[in-house]
Structure formats: structure tokens, C-alpha cells
């Protein structure tokens, strides 16, 4: 009986002195003075994922610029959704590392589930899942990426470690809207730590 009475008094006191409100406000106010964690995407900044990230595919070349893909079709076989098409052809002009090169290499990103089995299967590390994650498009057929597009180096090279926010530029191009990062201008290297 006695205890109950004491709690009631404390409650009234808290209310009179706005204790809970001040507690809440203190969090808000702390953020007001601390550094911002918001990424100003897509206008100024962009998050570059870590190396282990699995985004859109890229096809690689060796140091001499020859295509690494030998059109073995193992990625096609490994893919659980059947979204890769590879048709080989013979070409001994030095276009590829072997005289077997892809005539067609395309992937349908609408079907892809980014499991990475294709890159696991590839004997020459020709196909890699890159760090391009802006895949929105107006037309489904635009989601099919062909060899030429895939051979163009992605903005984030494979060697770049990632896991940071870098400055970026918002662009409208023929292929759609793009946010072009400048990986040499990191904005925030320890973004996760702040969250």
C-alpha cells in the first residue's frame, strides 16, 4: 500500500519536470551536433559495397587485353535460373586467351538471383559479379546485358576494396540514369561505425 503511494508521487514529479521528454530530446540533440550519417545519394555521394558484394556481371580481360572467357558454357550449366546464354565460336586472331571465344555472351538480370554460382564455375575468372547495383530500367529487355556491355570495365574495379561512401555525380545518359562514383574521392571510410 505504502509503496504504491510512493510510485504515484514519483510519476507526478517526472511529469512535472518533463524527464522523459528531455531524455528523448537529448538523443535528438546529440545527433544535431554529431556528424551526419545520411548518404546524399544519388546527387553527391554513393555507397561502394565491399569486394564480396554480388551485383551485375562483368567480363574480364587479361593484362594483354585478351578476353578471358573461353566460352566453355560452364557458367550456363551452373546457373540455377538459366539466365546466361553463351554461344562459342572459333577465333584465333588473339581476341581471347584461347581460340575458343564467345560469339554470344548475355545474361538476363531480371531472372538472375545473384547467387554467384557462375563466377564459381568459371575456370578462367572471366565472369565476376561486380559492384554495379543500379539495375532499374524502363524495359525488361534492357535488363539483358550482352558481351560488349559486360566487357566494358565497371566503374568500380575488382581490386578496389570498397565498403565506403565516395563522392558521385548524377547523370542522365542514353542508357538511363547513372550515378557515377569517383572512387578516388572517398567521403566516408567508416560509415558503418557511425551507425
Amino acid at each position: 500500500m505504502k509503496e504504491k503511494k510512493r510510485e504515484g508521487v514519483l510519476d507526478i514529479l517526472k511529469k512535472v519536470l518533463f524527464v522523459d521528454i528531455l531524455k528523448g530530446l537529448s538523443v535528438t540533440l546529440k545527433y544535431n551536433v554529431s556528424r551526419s550519417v545520411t548518404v546524399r545519394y544519388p546527387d553527391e555521394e554513393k555507397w561502394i559495397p565491399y569486394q564480396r558484394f554480388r551485383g551485375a556481371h562483368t567480363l574480364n580481360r587479361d593484362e594483354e587485353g585478351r578476353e578471358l572467357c573461353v566460352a566453355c558454357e560452364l557458367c550456363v550449366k551452373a546457373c540455377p535460373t538459366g539466365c546466361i546464354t553463351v554461344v562459342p565460336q572459333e577465333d584465333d586472331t588473339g581476341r581471347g586467351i584461347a581460340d575458343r571465344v564467345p560469339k554470344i555472351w548475355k545474361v538476363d538480370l531480371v531472372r538472375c538471383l545473384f547467387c554467384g554460382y557462375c563466377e564459381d564455375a568459371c575456370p578462367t575468372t572471366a565472369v565476376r559479379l561486380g559492384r554495379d547495383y543500379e539495375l532499374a530500367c524502363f524495359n525488361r529487355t534492357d535488363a539483358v546485358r550482352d558481351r560488349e556491355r559486360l566487357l566494358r570495365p565497371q566503374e568500380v574495379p575488382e581490386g578496389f576494396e570498397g565498403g565506403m561512401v565516395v563522392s558521385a555525380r548524377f547523370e542522365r545518359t542514353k542508357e538511363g540514369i547513372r550515378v557515377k562514383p569517383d572512387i578516388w574521392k572517398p567521403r566516408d571510410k567508416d560509415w558503418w561505425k557511425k551507425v
Partner: protein
Amino acid sequence: MTTGLVTLKINGREVTVREGTLILDAAKEAGFDIPTFCYQANLSGLGSCRMCLVEIEGQRKLQPSCITPVMPDMNVFTETDTVKMTRSAMLEFLLSNHPLDCPVCDKGGECELQDLVYKHGPRKGRFAEDKVRHHDKDYILSPVIVKNANRCVQCMRCVRVCKEVVGRGVLGAVGRGVHQEETSFLRTRLDCDHCGMCIEVCPVGSFMRLPYRYRARPWDLVSARSVCGYCATGCRLTLERRGDTVVRAIANPEDGFNRKLLCARGRFGYDVMNSEERIKTPLVKERDGSFRPVSWDRALELMKEAILRAGPERAAGVASATLTNEELYLFQKFMRKVVGTANMDSTSRWSAESSLKFMEAAGIRGGGTSVYQCAESDVVVVLGGQLSEENPVTDYILRYINGARRNTLVIASPRGMKLDSSAQLSVRTVPATTGAFIAALLKALVEKKEVSMEGMEAVKGLTVEELSGVCGVNADDIRWIAARLLTAGSVGVLAGTDMLRYDDGAEELALLVRLLENTVRDVRVLPLLDRANQRGAWDMGVHPYLEPGYRPAQRRGHDVHGIVELADSGGLGFLYLLGEDVLGLYPDRAGVERALSRVGFLVVQDSFMTGSAPMANLVLPMAMYGEKHGTMTNQEGRVQRMEAVRRPEGEVRTPLETIGRAGNLIEKDFPVVRPGDVWKEIQKQVPGYGEVRGMEAFKGASADQVAELKPSFSYAVPERAEGEFWLLTGNHLFHGARLSQHSGILRELLGGCVVEIGSTAAQRLGVGEGDMVEVEARGYRERLPVRIREGTPDGVAFMPENFDGKDANRFFDKDRVVSTVRIRPYKKQGE
């Protein structure tokens, strides 16, 4: 030969097998799989790869099971630790020099080395030394073969198959040890049969198909079991497509009587299906002679009008003997029931009488005869034809069986052939004198042994010398053959199409068979036919005198000669050429050209614009093998089912659909049918087909006798002026029927039409292989390169019958038994 049984134990399980069985086969029977590389059924044993080693109780060393025959009470172990370790070590050894470029290799996914390493191999290699490389780039050995020696596992299967089965022996092993390379002499381009057997048997990606190079992976392919359409050997093959393009034809060793065997036509002729030259829509001829595409409805309406306008007496049809049984059955039913005529044939080349005689003599209307049984006879006689080019796989089967069993092989033919080298005796007959040859043989037989048999009296009055003078064969040779025949326990006779073409020898053959049946007992006759379903066409009653199942027709019609004559006299209002190019094949081109131009309404249904097609009023597209279901009956009487690998493109239709719809348009109760329905009707209506079940079975016999065979025993050498050549025709090794000229691969192999003469004739003319000569007869001249055939006598020339624009039938005179031509060297002007 006595074949006792042997009982032994394999992994503790008791098995009983025939004496002489290899441990490998016995183990398979007991259900144990032993890995192999160099072993291949139907090749000589080698025992070099040591993959198949097994442990035998009481023997210190492991033994190769692929060359060790079983012994009574043997105790064999195939799965002990030592065996497993040895297998793994052998594979590690092979891999130590293997480039392991599986991602690039066309064999990847169906490679025996991959499979065995996966199953039995080490998971890690220990060799760090550099691998031997024979060359950096794959090299091309022929228009169909590309070679990578680095991947070779030295099993010698290629070398052995080329020598022992194909009979060319153009491959050999160069170098020793790790430097050994199986290839052609100095790696030069091969001038061989291009059969691709070396590719088929190679367990790894060392011999590879050039046309299939980097086209697909085995798991991309959709396949269907089909039957080769290029000759009546009727090899089973599997067609495989990627997307809509057929990319290869393979012989599945587990499927079909031919096992792994195919010739160049079967293995590389599949690309006709992909040809751009195919007829794609129905075409109707305009007044100005050009063709305009029309719809099927309109085309069939035109056909109906023409049939009704012509009436039964003035209508006729010729169907190709390469169609399926279902199509041929429906064709004759349509002609007989709807059009109301028996004017029909399944060939453009010989008369109905000659085919009746051949059917009777060669046992066509009887049940089937297996080529293996025939080839395994103590004495095998090949008559009347050029087996090696007409029926290449029959040639392979004869060769390897003869090599293994050493039975007596005798050849009597007008032209030299590859099989000559396997024959104990090979004689050259004058063209169209097979009858005289057999008569001489009969006489020689009765000289040696008294036989009293009906029909033999007349033989007694003959002399071997006189008859051998006609057929051009030495009398001693004939007596030698007769002696062999009399001591044989079994005889196989293979009778070729010369007997049909020249209406020659069927009566004598029947007599010979009866005589041998009385003395030897076990006699088999195998007809050698050049059209894939000739036997089926006869079975189905596509014949003016015969209804399905060899029942004599109520009312006889005209055969192809009669049809052409009728047309020539202006008496033909409607002619339906279903897949048959009469203009290109009938042995009198000028005559048939005139006749066809006088036909009221000519309908040609074909896959390509054949020689006859431009003369047609209506051209209909036609689906070909690989695009239709159905059954085919090969020369042995083996009924084989085939499946479509893809649908016909666009407006292309099967003959079954065309005939069904056309028939239905004219008579309401003529059904539009599917192959299965027709097959059921065939089983009911055609004697011998009722019991046929499954994918492959021999047909049964039918009771009716089709011809009385009474030899006249009067013979003459076909006329030929001094210096002239008898002109023979037929299939070429790379061209069967007329279809194959549209195969890009086969066209590349052959390069074009040739004229073939013997080496003595070439010497007389002063020409060498490939030199140009001018062939001339009946006012036509043709310039052609020469091909020299060892063993063909002077005075005999050959031109393939398959080339549009170089048609051999221009030189033929159908009133002469064998036409002759003059051949002279062609010199360019100024030389």
C-alpha cells in the same frame, strides 16, 4: 566350332559364359563395370592402356581383362585395393601429360578421360614437370577432322578402326613414348573416306569434328533417334540440334545394329536439313514460267482440280524409296483409292519386271536376314554392285568380321572396290553379266558334284569356259569359288543393284540359292539396295503390279517406263513426283525431258529444287528425315522407327499431311492422319508387319510368290566399240541418292562430279588423277576430272548419278543394255 561354357567367379559371384569370352565381358555380364581405354568391341585386342587390370587368384601380377580370356574356375577380383590403386595411378600417369584444357575442348562433358578420372582418379597430381606439347594450335586433317595430339591417351583406337574396320589405314603412330602422336603421314591432309570413325572412337578430344567445332556442349543438345536416309544399310543414328540448327549426327554404340559405325554420308550429311536452298512454300508456275508462292489451301485445290480433270487412266505417281513406310503406304492408297490408278513406281531406274524377279530371287518378300549372320558365313559372295561405295557400313561390317574370323570372301563386280583388299578372290565381271557369271558357277558346281534338281537340266549343256568368256572371269577362278562353296558350312550371298538395273542374274541367283540349300543348307541372301527404304517401298506396295504385302494387284498399272511413254504420247494428265527426281535419274534424259513437258499437270513435292522441279506446274515443299516420325525398312528387312529432332520450318509439310489433306479434299472419307494411325493400318494390312514391335525389329515373311523364275541361259557381252567405255552409274561414297548434293559438308568432301576409270585405262589415255577428260556420247560432252580406281578394268567407266547439271543419264540410251561413252583427255587450248 564347339563353344563350351566356362564357369568362373568374379568378386565372389559365379558366372557362366562362353569359352573364349574376355574377362571384361564376363564381368559386365556379372554386373561389374571395368574401366577401359584401348578396348573396343570389334577391334583387335591391344591391352596397352592398363586401365582394365584385374586381380586373378594365383597370379602374382594384375592382368589386363580386355585381352585375357576366361578360364574354368578362375577367381577374379575387380574391386580390390590394389586394383583401385593401380587404376588411380594409371590415370595420374595419363594426366601427367594431359593439357587439361577441358573448357576449350569439344569433348568436354562426354569425355571418357574426364569420366574415369572423376570416378577412379586421383584428386591430386604429383607431377610438376613440363608437359609434352606436340603443337600449339589444333591442325586440320580433312574437311571434317581437326586434331589436337596433346590430348591423346595413346589408345590406338583411331589407328585400328581406320585399318581394321574402314579399311583405309591412313593413320599411324609417329614417335614413341610420350612423343607418340597418332596422325596422318607427316600430318598432311588426309585423302580418305572421311567417315569420321576415328573421331567417333577417340575417347578424348584428340580427333574432333571440324563442322561441329565450338558449336555446342553435349548438354545443350536436344537429340532424337533417327535412321540414315542415304542408303539401305539403314544405319541407326542420333540427330542432335542446338536451337533449331542440327549440329551433328552420332552413332550411339548402345543403339542400333550398326553400333558406332557410320559412313561419311550418314555422319556428315545431316546438314542438308539446315540448307538455305530448301523449298519453303508451295509454288505455282505462272504463264511466263516463273514460280509464285501460294498458300497450301490453294495448292491442294489446284492438285485436286488436276486429278479430277485427268481421270484415273491419265494419272500416275512416282514416290521416292527414301520416304517412310507410312508415307509410302499412304501414297499408294491415295493413288489406288482416291486417284483410282495403279500407275505408280518407287524408282526411276528399272522396270517393274526386273524388280519382281529381284524380289523373288533375293528373298525380299521373305522375312529379314541379319547382315551379321550373312557376314559370318563360311563363304561370303558379293555380287553385282560396288558395295564399298553403295553401302559403306555393310562394307565395314564385312571387313572387320572377315578380319576376325578369316572366312572366305569372294567378290564379283564390274568395278574395283575397297573391299577387294579383304577378299580371298576378287574377280571383275563384264557389266550386266552377273547372270552369266552365276550360270558358270552353277555349271562348275554340278561338274564337281552331281545334283538332281528341277531346273538344272539346262545347266548341264553349258560349259564353264563359254560362260566365263561372256562374263570375263577366268574359268579356274570360277571353279575355285565352286569348290569353296561346296565345302562351306554356310554361305552368305550379297546381291547388288546391278541385277535390278540390268535385269540380269535374278533367275540364276534363285537357282544357285536353291542348289546351295540342297548341298550347304545354311544359305542367306542379303539384297544390297541403294535407296534407304527401297525394301519398305516394295513391302508397302508402291509398285504397279503389287499391292501391300506382295499381293498381286487386281489391275496392273504402268511402271516408270510405262509412265514416261504414256506421258510422251500426251496421255498423262496428272503426274505426282513425291521426292523422286525422274528427270535426273531416268536412263534417257532427253526422252524423259520431252515426256515431262507433255504432262498435263506435273506436281513435284520435294525438299529441294531438283532437276524435275522447274518443269512442274506445282511445287510443294517436303519435310525430310529428322523432321518426321515413322518407320523405315532397311535392306535386311529390319524395321526401324525414327523420331523427329525438330519440326519442319515454316510452310514445309510432311508428305503424310499433304497426301492426307489432298485425299480428304477429293474424297470426304479419306482421313487426314498421323504417322501412328497409318502404322496401325500397316500392321493390319501388310503381312509381315503385324508382329513388328518397338524401335527395331525384323519384319516377317509374306506368302505370295511374285515371279516365276526361269533362266534362259543365253548370254551375250553387251556391245561396245573398240576404245569405248561401258558407263556405269550409282551412288558415290560421299553422295547417296540426290539429296546429299545439298549438304555443304559432303559437297566439300567431294569437290564435284568425277568420272572414274581404272589405272590401265588411265595409262592408255595418258591421264592422271584429277586430270580433265571429256566424256562424250549421244551428242553430249562433259568435261570432268578423272578419279582412278585400282582394280577397275579398261573399258569400264563410272559416273555418280547424283549431280544436278552433270547428269549421268544424258549419256544413257535406255534401249541398250549398257550404254557406252567415249573418253578422251581434255587439253586446254594452246597446250
